[in-house]
């Protein structure tokens, strides 16, 4: 039941005492996994071949990486297995579909955002202005997110309108 536990946690974020940093990381990891369900990659960025995994790259957020590793184990998104890859500066992001740029690596945002076909997710204020398509926000006890659909579209990825409906803010200006 290890795989289910984080989901349960994610759903119970309303509960007070959301102080613990590892809980926040787990919620963020869960959000990253769930984003996969609302994103639609088009060629050539889409995973090729039957059974090819969706790949999430994580930079500068080891805790999130660890939590995500647990979550994706044995689970499918869009009918595909999910692979988590730890990235560092200078790595080639080829074959990665979603990149989470943690706070500590936020300086490299523009580079990741311009580089390849992966959708960039971050967790710092103004990240959308710097090329990220999705940005996780901390609002009171909740983790919310804001979205820049055009940034995703530039990478050949369409964000589901149902996800846009739940977003805290939808950025329509292009940087």
């Amino acid at each position, binding site marked *: 039941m290890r795989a289910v536990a984080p*989901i349960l946690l994610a*759903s119970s974020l309303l509960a007070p005492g959301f102080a613990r940093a590892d809980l926040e990381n787990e919620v963020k990891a869960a959000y990253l996994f*769930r984003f*996969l369900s609302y994103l639609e990659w088009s060629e050539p960025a889409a995973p090729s071949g039957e059974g090819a995994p969706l790949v999430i790259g994580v930079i500068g957020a080891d805790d999130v990486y660890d939590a995500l590793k647990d979550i994706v184990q044995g689970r499918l998104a869009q009918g595909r297995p999910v692979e988590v890859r730890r990235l560092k500066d200078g790595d080639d992001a080829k074959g990665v579909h979603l990149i989470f740029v943690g706070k500590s690596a936020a300086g490299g945002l523009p580079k990741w955002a311009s580089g390849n076909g992966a959708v960039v997710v971050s967790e710092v204020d103004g990240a959308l202005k710097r090329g990220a398509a999705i940005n996780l926000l901390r609002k009171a006890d909740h983790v919310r997110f804001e979205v820049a659909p055009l940034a995703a579209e530039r990478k050949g990825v369409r964000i589901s309108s*149902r*996800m846009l*409906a*739940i977003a805290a803010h939808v950025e329509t200006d292009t940087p």
Partner: protein
Amino acid sequence: MNLKPKFPAFLRRSISRKITALVVLSTVAALAVSAIGLIYYTLRDYRETKLDDVRTQAEVVGRAAAPALAFNDPKDAEQDLATLAARPDVVHAAVYGVDGTLFAAYTREGNVEPIPERVDESGLGIHGERVTLAYPILEDGQRLGTLVLDVRYGLRARLLAYVIILLAVTLGALLASLLVSSWLQRAVTDPILSVAEAARRVIERRDLSMRAGKTTDDEIGILADAINGMLADLEREMAERRTAEDALRTADRRKDEFLATLAHELRNPLAPIRNALYLLRMDGADAETHAEARAIIERQVQQMVRLVDDLLEVSRITTGKLRLRRERVEVRKVATAALEAVEPMIRDRGHRLTVSLPPPGLTIDADPTRLSQVFLNLLNNAAKFTEPGGKIDFALEVRNGELMARVTDDGVGIAPDMIEPIFEMFAQADRSLERTTMGLGVGLSLSRRLMELHGGTIEAESGGAGRGASFIVRMPAAGAEISIHSIDAASRIAPVDGNGRPAILVVDDNEDFALTLARLLRARGYQVRVEHDGLAGLAAAERLHPDVAFIDLGMPKLNGYDLARRMRANPATAGAMLIAVTGWGQEEDRARTEQAGFDGHLVKPIDPASVLNLLASIAEDAKRSETPPGAPAA
């Protein structure tokens, strides 16, 4: 097993009520069955439709709420649930997280029911007027939570609407069925009632002439026909029975009367006989008295013998022992015998009698005694039932193979309703005590029976009481071999020899027939000449001047017709009596021979006796014609 329905008492009396009950009950039964089926189907359908509908709604709402659940946004989920306000049947709706805790809720305005904090699995399903449905919220194959919808079922309202509609339909159908049954009343009940009414009247009034009115061609019509047919049969049979009973009573009464008459008739002669015996025993009686007494006894015994003979005939008729002894008899002789027997009575009563008889030589096949008895009976009756000095006519002829005799008088006559009954046994036209004529009432009945045995009939005609009567006797006489076309022919003949016997010429190409006939005639002393062809016959006729010529019709050289014509054309031979001898005896054959000048027509094979009778009569008539007029006939 008795399958007949037990009708309540008030229905048993009349078919019309039964029909009304039948129509109404069957209508209601049919409606009830269809209503149950309809309601069952509708409820099932309604339930499925409702569940499908709720399921669809849940899917829409669940799918809308999925992202909110995925990214933990209860407010957004509540907005999604609030769209259910468009559906008035949704009481409340709630989204629960994957752990079963309440995430977001919607409740209808005015609803005070609390929303469970956790998914209540036991409360799912249909409970009375509520449908509670749990619907899993999934996203990309992941279970995110549960949507619970609590909806008003609305079944009771639907059911109520149906019941109201069905009640209205039932009411309408009942009215319609009452209309139908009143129509059936006319179409079905009326004919039955009419038949039943006819049957009831027949029983009450014992009137078999009643008939049931037939108004339809269906089974009731057949019933009416059957009843009418039976009534007709019964009526006819009752009438027949009455007639038979009447006939029996009449016969019985006649027998009684007959016995009384018989006693009277048998007793009547006894007084004169006793008186005569007394006269004979008297010492002082002279010879004249004795002779008178003997005559009385003789007459009275004769009368008693006749009565007893009549009785014996009655006995023969009733036991079926009456037999004929047929033979070839000359009609004239039979008639003459009867005329001779009745002559004294006619003379006594001073009647005038005229007689017309066929020419001599005509024979028929009959019992001479019985036939004579019939004629005598009719003549006796005529003499008896005609006032003294009356007129009686007896005419007898044979024509077209039938003998017809008619006895006519101008006596008391017969009432029209007695014409047939007088032929019945023991019948008496006049039953009054004052009647002057007595008899056993056997004569006519016996006569009719005798004519029937001869294959003939006897009938009576009368203009009514006091207007005279006429009795007609008919019988077949196909055996009559000679027919004389004209009675005058006999008187033309004059005897050639001293004995008064006619000279005869036989012309026939059948030598055997000609010679045997000639031999037969010669044996009786006739002078006969035979020729075998027409020309030779003519020559012989011109030379010998025969009185009678028997001429065959089909002959060589000159046929019979031409020979006859030539003989008639020659004054020397024209006076001969010409008789055709032929195998053809039809009416047209006789007409042809008559036309050719023949006096008679003889059909082969001929009866020698009738030829001899004919010749004897001719001779007799010829002799008589020589005697002076007024002399009595022999």
